[in-house]
């Protein structure tokens, strides 16, 4: 497959994949988290990484963010900002029992995908708006972390060993993010060197925009109709 084929496959998958894939910690993993008492860092590390690698809304956001980042330095800067925001709300949220509806948080995450696609298309400049991407990425990091904090609390974490487990989970999230990011970066870098990049960049961001709208709409529907939080 050519690089842009892989990207389009990812985008297409995100549109048809069932919502259970997005973001949730479910099944036997949820059961494990519920039962854990005391510090148990490596399973939590794994769960954090898994959450990031299998959460396609996260992946789409990352894809949007690094679409036009050419230098590793820039990529690292943005990832660090996102991680800072993410870690802050995840740890504070769980420790202080802060939570909002995960549907609403996931809706904002969907919108963040559309936001980035719109930005990549030069939309904000066209509207005469100058948005500092560093602030936006940091802000979305805060929201992503809050969403995860809400989900972790819903699982009924044991207070014993909470902080070490949370930190392990958080490190796992960063590892997972780096794994996902490296793969996307490799594909993007390859793709950028081909002629098709110029032709398909607009289409890819248009699809990214659509995917974000679908994710947001799905979560909005879930907020009003699913009867859970």
């Amino acid at each position: 497959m050519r690089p842009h084929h892989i990207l389009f496959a990812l985008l297409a998958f995100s549109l048809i994949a069932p919502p259970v894939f997005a973001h949730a910690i479910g099944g036997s993993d949820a059961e494990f988290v519920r039962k854990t008492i005391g510090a148990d860092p490596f399973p939590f590390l794994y769960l954090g990484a898994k959450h990031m690698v299998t959460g396609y809304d996260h992946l789409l956001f990352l894809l949007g963010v690094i679409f036009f980042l050419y230098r590793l330095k820039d990529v690292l800067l943005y990832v660090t900002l996102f991680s800072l925001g993410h870690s802050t709300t995840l740890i504070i949220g769980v420790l202080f029992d802060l939570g909002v509806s995960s549907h609403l948080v996931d809706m904002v995450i969907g919108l963040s995908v559309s936001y980035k696609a719109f930005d990549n298309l030069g939309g904000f400049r066209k509207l005469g708006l100058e948005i500092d991407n560093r602030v936006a990425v940091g802000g979305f990091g805060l929201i992503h972390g809050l969403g995860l904090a809400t989900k972790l609390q819903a699982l009924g974490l044991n207070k014993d060993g909470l902080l070490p487990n949370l930190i392990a989970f958080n490190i796992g999230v960063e590892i997972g993010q780096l794994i996902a990011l490296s793969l996307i970066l490799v594909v993007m870098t390859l793709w950028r060197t081909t002629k098709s990049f110029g032709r398909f960049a607009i289409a890819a961001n248009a699809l990214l925009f659509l995917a974000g709208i679908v994710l947001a709409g799905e979560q909005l529907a879930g907020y009003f109709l699913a009867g859970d939080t």
Partner: protein
Amino acid sequence: MSEETPIAPEAIKPVQLQVSGKTLALITGGGFIAGALIVLGAIMPAEFNTDPLGLGKLSGIARLWAPEEIEVDTNSASGPLSRDSEIPPRTDVIEIPLTDFLGGAKGSELEYKVAMKQGSSLIYEWEAIGAKKASDVGFDFHGHTTPEPGQPMNVATYKQARGLKQSGSLIAPFDGIQGWQFSNFSDGPVIIRVKLTGFYDLVPSGQEGNLAGIIANVPAAQARPDFQPNQR
């Protein structure tokens, strides 16, 4: 990848695409419209049992929706041994025609349930007429609640087996519908004759529990007027 990988001259800072205002409007407007269509037409019917555009029913996507199920223990229960009923007892004979297995799921399989209040009793007896071997007919004797959208469904499974007759009694574990899914695996048509006595109500044709539209207390030939078996 090194820091100095100049792929394009403008690769010094993050760049953006240069898209005309018209294209931008097309992309965002189209994104909102297509996104709304996907959510309203497909995701909401399939995931949330809500079908604002009617597309879910039209496309069959709405059938994907199934409520979360909570299994009820059917082997142990405690309750009063004597129960008064608010409704009088009734007796019905229901003849259910099933085509041979080649008649497809619509012809050879059918679900028939009655509505019962929690704690009310039912005495049942059914036989498969026209079947030869016990393996010819499969049945799933079960009950469930009929929850509002988004609410979980209580499910009780009493017996899943193959056989040509069954008789016994049931005390409904919850307000809901109780009955059988019958499947004819044989190569000839079968009639299931169900005799019921107890405190229950028949489910009207087309509603959950009697989606096949079976009419009670008439011969099998007239019991399913809305269905014509495939002519082969």
